[in-house]
């Protein structure tokens, strides 16, 4: 049994170890130089009997039961586990494409390398992930001007079942109490010009109801996460997260998914899903404890999605000149009145640049009312034409 796992974060590592322990021959493909993913960046080891770890390796296409890697190289598999994680969804506002604005995830990644890009910093967005980011920046000596949560945490009061099943999450939050005094809710950065940052109080739909100016040289922004689902463009999904059954199977035969590609619920849920996917991929019954951890974790993930959802009022933060697509410099005024995503791309060039819409496509769809067709690309990462040409010669 050949199991290939893409991604070496908490989900991918758990899937690989579990599948190997069940007797499968496991290969982990990961684009980073070390295992751990974004969460355990540089703090994880993936050395396990029966597991081969391909570092610095990008996968770009799944074709039947073969995974294509940059190189080029092909990996045949009996079962594939997609554990490619997620990245921050940034919402545009005037100035978000200028200096001194990065994603909260970028700030966290830099902080793990001991680097802060500013002295006076603001963290703005929605979700509990903002707190560890703020704490990491403060630990490195930055002055925390504010931590702005666009939603109201009062929403958690309606989520008693999810909270009761995940008390350890509340304990985790207690670690960040030193940044909680900087936390302002129903608040967001809605513009930045130089170091002048416009901070708005929001209504429950995120429309500004008043604003003030703060001074900061770095704004770290993240309004939830978008999954990295490029390798299985045809797989069924909900809000772009991959649909999976109780065995972590996607709608594509032989393809499993684990971790944040299926929904955002934290590293412990990702790891439990990895255990379930790894066992199932190797043809074993998943351990009951892991199945139970997934059930509990999903309650939390669903509640998180409700309490910290992106509300439509953000669309009023932009002016006609605000950049929507950073790659192609497309402004709000350029978006026009397309009715499909394809038409929108062809008429405005939004989502047609280097990032292939990873940052802007969802936002552009919501700004125009065009139905979002998910992140569907034939090729998951940019490949030099020479490499494709070599491939054609080899296989024809």
């Amino acid at each position: 049994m050949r199991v290939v796992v893409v991604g070496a974060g908490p989900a991918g590592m758990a899937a690989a170890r579990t599948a190997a322990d069940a007797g499968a021959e496991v290969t982990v493909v990961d684009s980073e130089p070390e295992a751990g993913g974004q969460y355990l960046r540089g703090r994880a080891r993936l050395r396990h009997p029966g597991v081969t770890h391909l570092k610095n390796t990008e996968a770009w296409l799944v074709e039947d039961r073969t995974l294509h890697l940059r190189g080029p190289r092909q990996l045949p598999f009996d079962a594939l586990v997609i554990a490619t994680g997620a990245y921050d969804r940034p919402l545009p506002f005037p100035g978000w494409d200028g200096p001194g604005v990065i994603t909260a995830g970028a700030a966290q990644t830099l902080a793990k390398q001991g680097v802060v890009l500013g002295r006076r910093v603001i963290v703005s967005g929605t979700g509990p992930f903002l707190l560890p980011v703020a704490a990491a920046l403060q630990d490195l000596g930055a002055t925390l001007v504010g931590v702005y949560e666009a939603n109201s945490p009062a929403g958690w009061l309606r989520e008693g079942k999810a909270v009761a099943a995940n008390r350890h999450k509340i304990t985790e939050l207690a670690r960040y109490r030193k940044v909680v005094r900087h936390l302002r809710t129903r608040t967001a950065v809605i513009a930045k010009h130089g170091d002048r940052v416009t901070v708005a109080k929001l209504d429950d739909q995120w429309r500004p109801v008043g604003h003030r100016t703060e001074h900061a040289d770095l704004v770290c922004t993240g309004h939830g996460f978008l999954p990295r689902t490029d390798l299985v463009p045809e797989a069924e999904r909900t809000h772009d997260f991959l649909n999976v059954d109780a065995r972590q199977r996607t709608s594509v035969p032989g393809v499993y998914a684990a971790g944040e590609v299926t929904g955002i619920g934290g590293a412990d849920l990702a790891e439990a899903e990895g255990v379930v996917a790894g066992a199932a991929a190797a043809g074993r019954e998943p351990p009951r404890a892991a199945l139970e951890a997934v059930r509990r974790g999903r309650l939390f993930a669903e509640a998180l999605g409700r309490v910290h959802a992106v509300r439509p009022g953000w669309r009023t933060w932009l002016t006609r000149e605000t950049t929507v697509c950073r790659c192609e410099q497309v402004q709000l005024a350029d978006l026009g009145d397309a009715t499909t995503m394809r038409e929108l791309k062809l008429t405005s060039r939004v989502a047609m640049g280097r990032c292939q819409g990873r940052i802007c496509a969802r936002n552009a769809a919501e700004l125009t009312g065009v139905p979002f067709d998910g992140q569907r690309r034939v090729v998951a990462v940019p490949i030099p034409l020479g490499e494709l040409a070599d491939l054609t010669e080899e296989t024809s």
Partner: protein
Amino acid sequence: MKVTFNGLPREVSHVAELLPGRFFCGIGVCFGCVAEINGVPEVRACRHPLRDGDRIRTTS
């Protein structure tokens, strides 16, 4: 790290400091930080561990 950025000597602790307004997602998704590094074109700088002597170019 002592590097050369667009032909000029710079001393930085991270490649992000060289690319304000372009270094954005930090994990290779947004392609904002694409640069020529040590003669290799189209490198996402955020995925490149910076070393002394590196040559980074964003203009041709």
